[in-house]
């Protein structure tokens, strides 16, 4: 079971709700994914879709508000405070973007915002880069988890730097959730095999040709990767090691 800030989640998959073509498609994907935690954004009322909160409430999933679209600590902190008021949760997926083209995080602003929000009692889950030092800084200042990007948001490139994800897992004691970059099920499996405690993804499911089927694939992928990580894989070798014993082998004359 994944435990974040003392809350147990039986699914290690966190689903982002962005990118779905309709609420009905999103609902089927959430159900197929088995997730218990979904992200939501905060936008002006006139530009947001009615019925999203009702649907999520009906499914009984916990909300993880994000600060998507914020480029400064100042804006992210204000958005988080608004989210706490709107959704009655202290949890926040903290995003402070540093670059429009890659949507990669701005580490300096991220640390600044995380410090403020931790002080204000938020359960802070920062979307961070794959830098193990930055991840450790965020964990040390009291973040409830760290969420490194595998690759840029929505890129579907998978995990660009697997060894750094492994280093992050070694560097911090809090949960590590691979966030962003996942394209298909094998990427989610790899994240879990590298030692991640969970995977957060949106586009890989919501923009798939068949979102509900991809959600089901991701559900199994996260379980498979976790089991494999715990089971302990065999060593890689250059040459074969026979799995069938030679003992009792018949010699034909």
């Amino acid at each position: 079971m994944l435990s974040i800030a003392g809350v147990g989640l039986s699914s290690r998959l966190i689903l982002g709700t962005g990118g779905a073509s309709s609420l009905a498609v999103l609902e089927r994907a959430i159900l197929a994914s088995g997730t218990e935690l979904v992200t939501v954004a905060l936008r002006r009322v006139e530009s947001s879709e009615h019925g999203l909160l009702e649907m999520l409430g009906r499914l009984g999933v916990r909300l993880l508000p994000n600060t998507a679209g914020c480029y400064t600590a100042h804006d992210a902190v204000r958005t988080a405070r608004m989210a706490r008021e709107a959704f009655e949760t202290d949890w926040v997926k903290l995003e402070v973007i540093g670059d429009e083209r890659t949507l990669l995080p701005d580490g300096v602003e991220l640390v600044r915002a995380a410090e403020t929000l931790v002080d204000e009692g938020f359960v802070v889950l920062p979307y961070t880069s794959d830098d193990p030092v930055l991840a450790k800084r965020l964990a040390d200042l009291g973040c409830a988890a760290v969420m490194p990007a595998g690759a840029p948001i929505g890129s579907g490139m998978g995990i660009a730097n697997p060894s750094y994800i492994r280093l992050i897992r070694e560097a911090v004691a809090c949960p590590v959730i691979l966030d962003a970059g996942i394209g298909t099920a094998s990427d989610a499996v790899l994240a879990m095999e590298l030692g991640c405690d969970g995977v957060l993804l949106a586009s890989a499911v919501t923009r798939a040709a068949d979102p509900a089927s991809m959600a089901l694939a991701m559900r199994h992928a996260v379980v498979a990767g976790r089991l494999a990580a715990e089971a302990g894989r065999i060593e890689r070798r250059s040459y074969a090691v026979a799995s069938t014993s030679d003992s009792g082998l018949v010699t034909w004359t």
Partner: protein
Amino acid sequence: MISVVVNQVERVFEGERLDALLGELSLPPKGIAVAVNGEVVRRVDWASRRLADGDVVDVLTAAQGG
């Protein structure tokens, strides 16, 4: 009568308090957060919060997002 900016649109408001202004907008019953001049005003304070000419009011709610 005062003029306020609600979600970037200027609006003439005949009342005084935030809850009256919000009552004029058609808002979903739950999942709303309101800021005046960038600072969150908690739901319990909507009725007591007095608005002034030129105040900037933002009304936000849930949207799909990763």
